[in-house]
């Protein structure tokens, strides 16, 4: 295709010129030869020339036919012109480029995060066909649960819409070695059914996946490593396959390594540490028999070809509906079970999605304001360029050519802005990942890859077109010619457009201010929620006592008590406690019922196993009765402390002490009532019933986790060192993997909210500043244009106060219209924020009122400066001005 070749390999202009010259010369010589009939050489030459006509004109006309080459030529000319103009007006250019860099930069940064967290496809085959099975007990409230082992097997065996069904449950392991120089590590892992990887449609990078024979109790001492773990632990050595690692003091054989980038079920929207190791689930017969004991298994399935997600939901729901018929003793009353499916991964992104969408909306408004500002700049400059445009038009530049010129200028500004903006975006992403490390994992993974850069390019081209064409939008370019050389007058229409732009800017800023106000108000409400404990001076230390190192509870108790004592001996430490789970970070629920009540009345309670000193260390008041003491031994009757809400719910007369509860097969006697503590996030609603047991009395799966809680009058770096030393002086094999203050724990539990508030407030501030600058610019320009008129007014007796008010009222009028417009849009936008609001209605008078007040106040300030300049106009100078 010749056009394709021309497009890809455009011949250079010089080449074509040379070619044409040669062609015409050849013709000329040929003509001369044919004219040689008794003429002198000089005469021959002229005859030939005459025959060919005006050669210069021929060349011109031929050149006009070289469309592609001439297009490139013109582009080059226009670009040169844009550069020249930019260099001649450095302040204008800098302002415009910086504004666009801000607008495009924040959009690029936010898009890169959205792209990583919400848009990226998980690294599985055909991920849209993967579904997650979710169970819930609607009467007990709370979110989606997993399934019990027996339920998982029922779904797997009975489904008619899912091709394969795989299960998985989180696990943590202590990774120990005989090398005393290596600290024991605590790793996140996953126990999975053998067919998980085939369900996902992934194959390992090295080695193999699990066989069915390995997914059996006793045969399941094999493990697959993540790529990252393989690199970290084995330096990427192929010898790792077949090697043995010690997990919870048990040898496991490594049989495979997953490819780089494989993650399951962790994704970019998750928080915390991704699993680095997978082992077969190997369900025991005991666990399968105990149908109602525990619901830890998450289920993933792949839709059969042709099956829709709705069909799968119906299928799963009807399987769950059979359970009560087969096990009438179990699924009754509060244990009424419902099940459904959702697209896999939806649950993970549910938390981050509303925040990221809100932020995306915010940056689009920022870009809108940035565009409006640059358009205003362009308009102001177009007015002063009327003369230039008129002259160029008179010299033969067509209207289309002038439009292209304006477009080139706009694109030049936008693309330069995009270049700077991309750098800005890079810094912003880094900063955000540093400030909110546990918002989502994707924040630190976000990078400026090709799709992000493509997005940036598209946005900046669009921006460039909008900004570049602003002067053309407002009026016929021909007007420029008619107005050429004359100043003032005829600017009414143009001023209208500029005012509209200011209104849009003010309105957009108000929308963002309202959004930020709503979120700040919500955050303040969250802070006011009583936590039920005092976090000041509290440091927590996470450790683990695994079953293999401490197979019986007696030595464990001895070690734990010893550690508690040694920690208490650290100078400055006032109180020490031990808990398996701590509020605002951990989540553990148990099913309980009152003694003598029907199984159908079972309820969920937050649960933790704690030592007697825990309440003092956290400053949780014991309202009635006592805390756990040395008398609560494993052989004594099991005692429990419940929270105030639970006591009031069941025994409003205050007779809770001495009453009995059932938890699984255990019978608990209430010996104390503690103050209410917010166990789940502060913004998650009312406090739920909570049950505490003594960690030195009750044995459960939870007791491998041990969190030591210290209240100290001092803090500082060496406290952590003293803690480690105290623990390792008792047993060097205990992993100490997380030492942090309770304040950090609280901050982390509110990270999503902090992220949303921080960014939205930053963007609202940016929007406000840009809008105010825009207003200031327009008013200043208007005052400059009206100098003559204002001077006339002053000369005719207007006081400077009157002139001041005249100009200021212009500015305030625009901002008030903007506020009204912004409030309407803001009310609509606030609905989108509803998931992030806490204790605040979408129409919060405080947020709306403050946003309006801030904007009007700032615009009064912005109007005051040009107004003062107007009031000080010297009538003589002003009249001479024209």
């Amino acid at each position: 295709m010749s056009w394709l070749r021309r497009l890809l390999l455009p011949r250079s202009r010089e080449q074509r010129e040379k070619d044409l010259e040669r062609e015409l010369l050849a013709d000329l010589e040929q003509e001369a030869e044919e004219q040689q009939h008794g003429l002198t050489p000089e005469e021959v030459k002229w005859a030939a020339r005459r025959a060919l006509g005006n050669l210069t004109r021929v060349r011109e006309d031929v050149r006009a036919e070289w469309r592609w080459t001439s297009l490139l030529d013109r582009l080059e000319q226009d670009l040169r012109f844009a550069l020249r103009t930019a260099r001649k007006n450095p302040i204008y250019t800098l302002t415009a480029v910086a504004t666009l860099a801000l607008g495009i930069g924040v959009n690029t940064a936010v898009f890169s995060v959205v792209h990583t967290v919400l848009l990226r496809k998980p690294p599985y085959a055909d991920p849209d066909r993967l579904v997650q099975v979710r169970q819930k007990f609607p009467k007990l409230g709370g979110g989606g649960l997993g399934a019990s082992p027996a339920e998982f097997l029922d779904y797997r065996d009975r489904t008619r819409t899912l091709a394969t069904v795989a299960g998985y449950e989180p696990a943590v392991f202590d990774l120990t070695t005989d090398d005393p120089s290596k600290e024991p590590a605590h790793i996140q892992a996953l126990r999975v059914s053998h067919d998980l990887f085939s369900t996902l449609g992934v194959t390992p990078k090295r080695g193999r996946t699990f066989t069915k024979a390995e997914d059996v109790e006793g045969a399941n001492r094999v493990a697959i490593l993540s790529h990252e773990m393989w690199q970290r632990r084995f330096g990427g050595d192929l010898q790792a396959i077949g090697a043995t690692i010690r997990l919870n003091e048990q040898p496991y054989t490594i049989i495979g390594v997953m490819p780089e980038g494989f993650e399951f079920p962790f994704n970019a929207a998750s928080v915390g540490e991704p699993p680095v190791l997978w082992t077969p689930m190997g369900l025991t017969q005991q666990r399968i028999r105990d149908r109602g004991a525990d619901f830890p298994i998450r289920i993933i399935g792949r839709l059969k070809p042709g099956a829709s997600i709705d069909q799968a939901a119906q299928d799963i729901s009807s399987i769950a509906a059979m359970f009560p018929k087969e096990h009438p003793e179990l699924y009754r009353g509060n244990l009424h079970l419902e099940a459904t499916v959702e697209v896999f991964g939806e649950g993970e992104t549910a938390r981050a999605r509303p925040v990221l969408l809100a932020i995306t909306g915010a940056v689009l408004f920022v870009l809108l304001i940035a565009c409006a500002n640059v358009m205003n700049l362009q308009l102001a400059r177009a007015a002063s360029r009327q003369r230039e445009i008129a002259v160029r038009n008179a010299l033969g530049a067509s209207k289309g050519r002038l439009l292209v010129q304006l477009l080139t200028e706009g694109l030049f500004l936008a693309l330069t802005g995009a270049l700077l903006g991309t750098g800005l975006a890079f810094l912003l992403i880094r900063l955000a990942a540093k400030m909110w490390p546990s918002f989502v994992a994707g924040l630190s993974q976000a990078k400026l890859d090709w799709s992000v850069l493509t997005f940036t390019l598209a946005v900046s081209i669009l921006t460039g077109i909008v900004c570049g064409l602003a002067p053309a939008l407002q009026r016929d370019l021909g007007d420029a010619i008619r107005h050429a050389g004359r100043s003032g007058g005829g600017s009414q229409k143009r001023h209208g457009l500029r005012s509209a732009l200011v209104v849009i800017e003010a309105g957009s800023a108000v929308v963002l201010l309202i959004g930020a106000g709503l979120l700040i108000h919500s955050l303040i409400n969250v802070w006011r929620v009583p936590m039920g404990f005092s976090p000041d001076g509290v440091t927590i230390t996470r450790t683990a006592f695994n079953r293999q190192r401490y197979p019986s509870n007696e030595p464990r108790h001895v070690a734990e008590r010893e550690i508690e004592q040694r920690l208490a001996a650290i100078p400055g430490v006032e109180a020490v406690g031990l808990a398996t789970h701590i509020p605002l970070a951990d989540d553990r629920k148990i099913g309980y019922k009152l003694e003598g009540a029907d199984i159908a009345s079972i309820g969920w309670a937050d649960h933790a196993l704690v030592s007697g000193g825990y309440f003092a260390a956290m400053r949780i008041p014991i309202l009635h009765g006592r805390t756990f003491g040395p008398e609560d031994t494993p052989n004594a009757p099991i005692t429990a402390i419940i929270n105030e809400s639970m006591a009031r719910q069941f025994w409003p007369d205050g007779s809770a002490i001495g009453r009995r509860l059932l938890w699984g097969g255990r019978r608990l006697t209430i010996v104390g009532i503690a103050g209410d503590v917010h166990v789940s996030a502060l913004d998650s609603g009312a406090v739920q019933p909570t049950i505490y047991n003594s960690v030195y009395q009750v044995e459960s799966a939870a007791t491998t986790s041990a969190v030591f809680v210290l209240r100290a009058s001092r803090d500082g770096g060496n406290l952590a060192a003293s803690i480690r030393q105290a623990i390792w002086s008792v047993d060097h094999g205990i992993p100490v993997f997380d030492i942090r203050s309770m304040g950090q724990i609280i901050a982390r539990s509110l990270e999503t909210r902090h992220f949303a508030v921080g960014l939205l407030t930053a963007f609202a501030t940016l929007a406000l500043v840009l809008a105010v600058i825009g207003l200031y610019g327009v008013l200043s320009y208007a005052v400059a244009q009206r100098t003559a008129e204002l001077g006339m007014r002053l000369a005719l007796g207007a006081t400077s106060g009157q002139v001041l008010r005249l100009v200021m009222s212009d500015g305030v009028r625009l901002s008030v219209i903007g506020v009204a417009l912004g409030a309407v849009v803001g009310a609509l936008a606030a609905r989108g924020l509803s998931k992030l609001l806490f204790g605040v209605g979408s129409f919060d008078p405080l947020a709306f009122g403050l946003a309006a007040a801030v904007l009007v106040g700032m615009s009064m300030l912005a109007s005051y400066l040009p107004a003062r300049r107007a009031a000080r106009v010297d009538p003589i100078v002003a009249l001479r001005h024209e």
Partner: protein
Amino acid sequence: MPPRSQTSQKIQLLQGTLDMLILRTLILGPAHGHQIAKHIQRTTDDLLQVEHGSLYPALHRLEEKGWIAAKWEAAGKDLKREFKYYRLTAAGKKQLVAEESEWKQMTSAIARIMWPVAGTEGKG
């Protein structure tokens, strides 16, 4: 520039015809600009004078459109001189057929208006 737009109108009137004539000429085989001009002139007994001011822009236009292709080749006495020889491309051949039939339709339509068949008119 107003005068320019006038000329361009005039050129356009001639343009289509000249393009067709060039394409038709090249059916006989590759030729350079001078030969094409001379061929048209001779064939029409000097009735149609092809000016270089029209010929070369037309050649470059047809080349841009991909209807003809060019190649430098030596010719003349002792192959002393190089000429830019144009030849018809496949697309050009198609274009010629299309233009030819269009031209025929137009001339017959014009003819019907200018010289209506005698008799049919008189009876009306």
